[in-house]
């Protein structure tokens, strides 16, 4: 199971009365095995939402919980993929992926099997002995995704994971993530400011207001995806040309534009 729940969550950085109000009254439930994307203007606190689920930040008020248990600290049940990859540069690709399993005291044979399966799935087998810096950004992020997925976590937290990649790599990674997520569904919380990415990947998209961030609306993409049969298209650009896709994308764009405009008043 992996149900993420935000109830009445406020986050203030600094003193409660005078500090920076990052989040205000966040109420959101992410269902088990659901892929939820959060989009919002920069500085709206979307990454803070993810960091609270990860256990890196605590809510000032309200509760963030997974399966009803309030989050106290980081843990391997909530695997994180960071924008800057955050691999251990002194460990090989194999050892980076192995570390989490060793921490869970998984037996050697089991570890080897799971790692070689995930390496294979992510097309990393020939890079097992490389150090992260010997790989391109896209390859490094594959390793980071493998490191998260191999833990078989209930919840996968992805903080703008493709933000640091070039456009072509990004598209390939998005297609691979869809493939991975359909084959092996998890509860995913995916932070991005790229609207197309959110619509292409997510079952639902939550749009946030500018700071202090609130949930402005939540769009159901999955029902449209299924009705229009998006998954029958292999290439992202084919999906992006569909009228249903364009419609959703434009809707989100407008919503974000309003926030941007309000920011300048």
């Amino acid at each position, binding site marked *: 199971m992996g149900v993420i729940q935000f109830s009445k969550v406020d986050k203030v950085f600094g003193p409660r009365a005078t500090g920076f109000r990052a989040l205000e009254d966040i109420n959101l439930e992410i269902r088990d095995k659901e892929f939820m994307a959060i989009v919002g203007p920069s500085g709206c606190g979307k990454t803070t939402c993810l960091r609270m689920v*990860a*256990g*890196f930040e605590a809510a000032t008020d309200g509760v963030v919980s997974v399966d009803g248990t309030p989050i106290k*600290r*980081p*843990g*391997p049940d*909530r*695997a*994180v993929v*960071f924008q*800057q*990859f*955050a*691999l*251990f*540069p*002194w*460990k090989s690709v194999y050892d980076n992926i192995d*570390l*989490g399993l*060793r*921490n*869970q005291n998984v037996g050697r044979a089991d570890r080897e099997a799971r790692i070689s399966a995930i390496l294979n799935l992510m097309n990393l087998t020939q890079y097992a002995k490389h*150090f992260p*810096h*010997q790989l391109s950004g896209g390859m490094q992020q594959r390793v980071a995704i493998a*490191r998260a997925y191999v*833990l078989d976590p209930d919840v996968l937290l992805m903080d703008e994971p493709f933000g640091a990649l070039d456009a072509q790599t990004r598209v390939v990674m998005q297609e691979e993530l869809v493939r991975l997520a359909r084959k092996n569904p998890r509860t995913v919380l995916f932070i991005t400011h790229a609207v197309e990415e959110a619509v292409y990947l997510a079952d639902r998209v939550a749009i946030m207001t500018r700071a202090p961030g609130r949930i402005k609306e939540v769009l159901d993409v999955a029902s449209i995806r299924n009705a229009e049969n998006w998954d029958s298209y292999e290439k992202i650009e084919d999906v992006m040309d569909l009228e249903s896709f364009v419609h959703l994308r434009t809707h989100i764009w407008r919503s974000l534009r309003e926030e941007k405009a309000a920011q300048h008043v």
Partner: protein
Amino acid sequence: MPRRISIGFATIFVVCIIWFLLTTGLGIIPSGRFPSPAETWSALIHVSGRGYGGGDLAMHVYNSLRLVVMGFLFAIATGVPLGLLMGWSRRAEAVINPIFLIIRPIPPLAWIPLAILWLGLGDAAKIMVIWFSAFVPSVINTYAGVRNIDRPVLEAAYMLGMPKFRFVSEVLVPGASPMIFTGLRLSLQASWTTLVAAELVGAFYGLGRVLNVAQQDLYPGMILVGMIAVAILGWGTTRLLGVAEAWALRWNTAALAAKG
């Protein structure tokens, strides 16, 4: 032979020629001020064969090297863990930092009189002074190294649920290791400086002792032999450390190369 190395040998050769010309060849520098190559050679033969200042060259070298290695190892065995602790725990830093602020400005050599007063002219006093001088750069660089570890990398480690000991040995230490090695190199230099100074003040053996006795005997050739011996040992030990560093930081050379 690589070009850089052959150029290096050529430079040393030219310096020796100039040295010869200034002393023996043209007689510009009198031998009472600076020894000629021949005088230096005979001093080397003297100390290697009959011995000088209480022992032969091998004995002096052995003693100096032994003290440096022991002092250095004591210093890093205590300094690196303390630096890790200070880098990791704000509380430990708050407690220890004031002590550091007081002790740091004291030049390590200023501890020599106290060390001799406490421990006499034997090995213990010298190891203590070397320890004091090599300790500080180890601590400070290790501390800075821990503080320099990327925050997301630390967060990735928390996310993976690391047991404490493994967190220290597989994340903190390797993460800080580029700076730790900077600290070790500075510590090693400090060890040699301090050793020679401590032996100059008072010792029964050692290269500092050779220098001290040669000065009293007005024996420039022997002074130069002592200096050259210290230089070679300092270079050799630094070189060994460099080999260890290159091995421990293989991943980092890849990182630096990738950055261009």
